[in-house]
């Protein structure tokens, strides 16, 4: 069985990065970036997610199948949200209430 045992140093580095990102995202929230505050918050959250997934959940060492599964999951969530928003945001374009 091939097992990848990562060093404590790696884990510690990832952990510290995560804490720093938490501080950053909290701080950024108090700065007025206009619409970019949402973008910033989500980007940082995605970064943190990637760190946790790649290192703590060992996606880095995992099979192609596992990665496919993950990408698929994110894609499906994207479908759910994007298609629904396509409705919500285009309501009223026609200028006829309810169409």
């Amino acid at each position, binding site marked *: *069985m091939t*097992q990848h*045992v*990562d060093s*404590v140093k790696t*884990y*510690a580095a990832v*952990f510290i990065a*995560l*804490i720093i990102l*938490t*501080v950053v*995202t*909290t701080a950024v*929230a*108090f*700065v*007025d*970036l206009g619409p970019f*505050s*949402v973008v910033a*918050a*989500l980007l*940082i*959250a995605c970064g*943190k*997610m990637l760190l*946790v*997934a790649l*290192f*703590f*959940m060992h996606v880095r060492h995992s099979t192609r*199948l*596992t990665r496919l*599964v*993950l990408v*698929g*999951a*994110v894609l*499906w*969530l994207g479908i*759910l*949200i994007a298609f*629904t*928003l396509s409705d*919500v*945001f285009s309501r009223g374009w026609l200028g006829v209430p309810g169409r």
Partner: protein
Amino acid sequence: MADFAHAESLAVREQFDTAEQQKDASTLGMWIFLITEIMFFGGMFLAYTVYRAEYSYAFAVASSSMNVYFGAFNTVVLLCSSFTMVMAVRSAQLGLRKGTVVYLFLTLILGLAFLGVKVFEWSEKFREHHIPGMAGFHLDGVPPDQQGQAQLFFSLYFAMTGLHALHMIVGAGIVITLMYFAWKGKYTAEYMTPVDIGGLYWHFVDIIWIFLFPLLYLIDRHLGRYIL
């Protein structure tokens, strides 16, 4: 029948041929399970996105009313628990029984700490009458005709953090079970799949929080300056 009895490892159940196959199956199984969890929370993320887009003012005020320090503190707590969890997995990989148990124990404590803070936060909401559906619901800074929209925020807040907390409780149960068996010496460097997939679950619950924190506490907080 004899050729089905694989004495290769005690832990290989009868439907599998090899321990490797069994480990692959369990790990993939956990990943697939996590997909279902993503879609489960996804439904709520969708509702949140739609309403936030629509009622950004009420939502901005409502999320500014959250206690960001509790939120950030809890985030750090969970990240710490993820770190101890990954260390537990690492110890198990190396066959270090004591290390596994100790790290699992730390994980458990951190998880419980998170839940404790959460309970405190919720009770604060009760005191502030920020409970959706409650007769006296009122959120300062939101005009009367948008109180309903603010309620939507809190409905989603409670649904999302509530279900997240439920997952934490399940996670705590898993950690306790793992601790027990690790203590009993059931896991070895060759066979530690349960610790591995327990870890996956724990990290996943952490990731959910990584998104909940900015969505519920942070976005549009800068607006708080104008509002509160």
